[in-house]
């Protein structure tokens, strides 16, 4: 059973090896002529103003928090979906109650305006 996971590790190792080989080849064939301007931050040809490490909009955090909430609840739905046929009627009703609670959450978030971008 566990041996079916083996190819995954070899694939990941193979993918990393491929990337490393390509980058090494690039290092070998590519030129190396460093200048100060070349390594400065690209800002459409202007002198860079400050750094990018500044505050950004809180909207992104809202999306991230909502994602975590909903994604975890979706993850709970997966084992249920796999054994859906065996669970039958009772399983359906139980999960339906869970989904309704989830939908109440979605409705609340919607009404609160957390899904508005502007």
């Amino acid at each position, binding site marked *: 059973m566990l041996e079916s996971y083996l*190819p995954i590790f070899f*694939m990941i190792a193979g993918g990393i090896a491929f990337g490393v080989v390509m980058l090494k080849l*690039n290092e070998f064939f590519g030129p190396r002529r460093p200048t100060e301007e*070349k390594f400065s931050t690209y800002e459409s040809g202007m002198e860079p103003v400050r750094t*990018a490490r500044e505050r950004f909009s809180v909207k992104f955090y809202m999306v991230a928090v909502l*994602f975590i909430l909903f994604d975890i609840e979706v993850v709970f739905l997966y084992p249920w*979906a796999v054994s*859906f046929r065996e669970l039958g009627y009772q399983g359906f009703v139980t999960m339906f109650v869970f989904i309704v609670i989830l*939908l109440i959450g979605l409705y609340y978030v919607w009404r609160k305006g957390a899904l508005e*971008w502007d």
Partner: protein
Amino acid sequence: MYELLHDLLGDSLLVYVIGAALPLLFVLPFAVVAVLLEMKVSAHMQDRVAYMYTGWHGVLQPVADILKLLQKEDTVPAAADKFLFRLAPFLVFMGGYAGFAALPFSSAYIGSNIDLGVFYILAVSSLAVIGLMMSGWASNNKWSLFGAMRSVAQIISYEIPSALSILVAVMIVGSLNLQEVSKFQEGGIQNWIVFGGPMPLLQKLLLLPFTITAFFILFLAGIAEVNRTPFDLPEAESELVQGYNTEYSGMKFAIFYLAEFANMFLVSGIVVSLYLGGWTSPFGDVMSGPIWSFFWFVAKGMFFVFLQVWIRWTLPRLRVDQLMYTSWKVLTPFLFVCIFAVGLILVL
């Protein structure tokens, strides 16, 4: 495939190494073909001819591009976080490429026949999100950071519709293993889950509207997750230069590009295996078998890759608020209706 390798090589680790190398041998030629396809299709849609000089009708252009990128200087900006900047392309590439392990390429070959299947794909492909964020943050460039933020917000918003639409197919089949899902749909085009699956006629007709909806939403969310037009805000070149990979050059840039094309096929592969019969032949027993099944899987996958290119040259880009609106207020409620209805039909 693994049985054959076992017979040839005996019980050694080499069997798994070769088995695991096969998807890479598929992805690299695929990327070359896909670059050419995108170039040629987009050109002909605009009444142009694209490259004509490199080889016959320019077919060698992608190879020439790779050779050119190999000879470029590999720059790391002075202000960047050097370690994360170098690590990010690997994570982005692995997020797409590791997913290929659970795609059933043929009735005889799947990289790794795990029961978690499509769930594993969902899990590893979120690795790419971390990679994108890492590349944007480490570049210390405003364009990169905004591109990465937008990209992450978009991918995680569309992760929910795509996970829910996968759920609809999983409920019908009762397995997460994409090999099992494909086997379930054997016996011709009428047994594909998009057409209700191999159910009794009445149940099939009832399921039909919901499976078709879920199929469309899965494809739509898939396009959004690989950041392609009309969902390409992260790379909106008129606003953000190149988005999260603005500061990358040479082979690192090529790896991002490769990851995008690998993801295009991965998304198509998931859609095809879950809803369009995977490697099964549309004519029942005619033209089936391990080699034909590989042909069908790749043919269906390539059709969806073509569709993604087609959509790119047909639709304009969405605005951010439209993007969020579509994901949270249209697709997600629709899918809850689908899940409820499919559950009800299967139980009764």
